[in-house]
């Protein structure tokens, strides 16, 4: 084996940015705690911070504030946080894998597939328990993504970013209209409209018990594979040359995306833009290394969803504004900004 004649050059510089990344991560965590605190305290019944803190630590069901917090607001905000993390991480993975700055589970057929599957569940089996709903939503997400990838890779030259985006738009349109058709025919458009608009209002502890572990495991696998994702983002040829088992890596990462997006959609419906926006904001802060992008995306995705949900239920109280609409309100200008910037290469 060849030994390089290393000429030692004095150098203490590190080659990734752990210091910056850690600060951002810590900052994100504090921001998340603060926004959760804010989210729990505001609403129809204003509850001040000390009470919030006290009722989480010493829950007393005889107090009304405690009941509101523990049965309504805390699960709701936990749900928002976990869903935000799931969307943001799956968006980051998709962007790295497809090398497409506009990739987002919503734009790649995942959300539409899951929604269609849910429409079918509501239409044919109204009594399905939450576990079944979640499972079906995974399968729907898988079918949606599978169609996009199949359609995108049919022609020679394989999966180019532009093809994936076009195929994603086509498949999403098809699956959403099918879903709406089913909803109209079975007269459940109201249920489904509420679902697709997105909302965490009904989140309960039973759902969280199922979904939180699933999302956490998904994010942990994503973190474990984040270095592989960075290498994959250099392009398939470079990755294979470096000795990466690219097919295995892609299958694992795609599975993680399905799990995260499927779980998130099953809880709140298809919320676009979180998965698109958050990784870009994070990339701006910590650079292009997915070892930092993934955990930071999880953190900031949570913050964004918690704040968006808080805004959604307070801006026009006592009515709930769909949280999907709130996110889209922030998301559309951002999307335009990205398109203007050229949506160029990224990794």
């Amino acid at each position, binding site marked *: *084996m060849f030994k*390089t004649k290393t000429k030692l050059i004095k150098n203490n510089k590190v080659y990734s940015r752990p210091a910056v990344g850690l600060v951002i991560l810590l900052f994100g965590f504090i921001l998340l705690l603060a926004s959760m605190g804010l989210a729990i305290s505001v609403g129809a019944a204003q509850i001040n911070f000390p009470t919030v803190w006290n009722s989480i630590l010493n829950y007393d069901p005889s107090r009304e504030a405690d009941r509101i917090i523990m049965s309504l607001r805390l699960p709701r905000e936990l749900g928002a946080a976990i869903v935000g993390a799931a969307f943001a991480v799956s968006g980051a993975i998709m962007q790295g894998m497809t090398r497409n700055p506009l990739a987002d589970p919503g734009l790649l057929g995942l959300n539409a597939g899951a929604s269609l599957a849910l429409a079918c569940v509501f239409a044919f089996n109204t009594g399905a328990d939450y576990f079944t709903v979640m499972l079906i939503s995974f399968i729907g997400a898988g079918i949606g993504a599978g169609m996009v990838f199949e359609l995108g890779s049919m022609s020679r030259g394989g999966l180019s970013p532009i093809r994936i985006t076009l195929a994603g738009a086509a498949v999403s349109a098809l699956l959403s209209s099918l879903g709406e058709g089913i909803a109209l025919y079975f007269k459940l458009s109201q249920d489904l409209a509420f679902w697709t608009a997105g909302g965490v209002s009904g989140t309960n502890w039973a759902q969280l018990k199922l979904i939180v572990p699933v999302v956490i495991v998904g994010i942990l696998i994503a973190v474990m594979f984040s270095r592989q994702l*960075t290498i994959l983002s*250099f392009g398939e*040829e470079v990755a*294979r*040359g470096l*000795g990466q088992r690219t097919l295995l890596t892609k299958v694992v990462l795609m599975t993680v995306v399905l799990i995260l997006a499927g779980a998130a959609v099953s809880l709140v419906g298809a919320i676009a833009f979180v998965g698109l926006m958050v990784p870009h904001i994070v990339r701006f802060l910590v*650079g292009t290394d997915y070892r930092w992008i993934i955990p930071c995306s999880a953190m900031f995705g949570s913050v964004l969803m918690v704040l968006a949900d808080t805004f959604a239920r307070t801006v026009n109280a006592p009515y709930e504004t769909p949280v999907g609409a709130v996110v889209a309100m922030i998301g559309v200008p951002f999307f335009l900004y990205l398109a203007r910037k050229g949506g160029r290469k990224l*990794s």
Partner: protein
Amino acid sequence: MSRLYAEQLHIAYGERDIVKDLNISIPDGKITTIIGPNGCGKSTVLKTLSRILNPKSGSVYLDGKAVSKESTKKIAQKMAILPQSPDSPEGLTVGELVSYGRFPYQKGFGKLTKRDFEVIDWALHVTGVSEFKDRPVDALSGGQRQRVWIAMALAQETDIILLDEPTTYLDLSHQLEVLELLHQLNRDEKRTIVMVIHDLNHAARFAHHMVAMKDGSILKEGTAEEVMTRSVLRNVFHIDAEIGVDPRTRKPVCLTYDLIKNVQLVENLA
């Protein structure tokens, strides 16, 4: 027997056959250049040698073992590949990118060891990009960027380096800079270098071994003097070339050339 060779390669994209029944052996410790017209399959062969593409049939062997059977990470410790003009990721610094060349040696989360840092610094130094270490790759010029990618391949510490058109899109002096660097790596450290290259004179100037391909097969291989001849170039490129000797390097050069069709056309007109 060479360390890297391939037997009876049959390579196809879908239904379309690109290469049929090709045998190639890469001389150890030498610079090999592959020339040929667009679409002749030279890049395809290079990609197959580096296991980026899988052949439909036939095998590539490295140190006597079929590359398809060995661990891809082990191979990445022996053989590096620089694909044609890879996209540079936005925002990644030169040092970060080159550090990923250590991937084949890493396990788990890939904390860089003291030795990794030494190799990375050496690779940055020898390619002359140390001063850009903390700059984003996408802020560099084309020539600098190409040297950064070569530095990443060097950080893999492999005996064999394959490069697909490493000088494309570079200006005259940057082209020579990259080729001189590869020449130096071969001369001083006996690394085996294989590259696909369009410029015939560069190919002849730096090659110990030249391979001329056409329509998916090897038409002629040997020294530059053997391959850079009128008849070979007529067959391969369909050109009528005037071959001379470079007064500085004593290597064959193509001084000027005409398309053979045009020659006939001119003759017909006359």
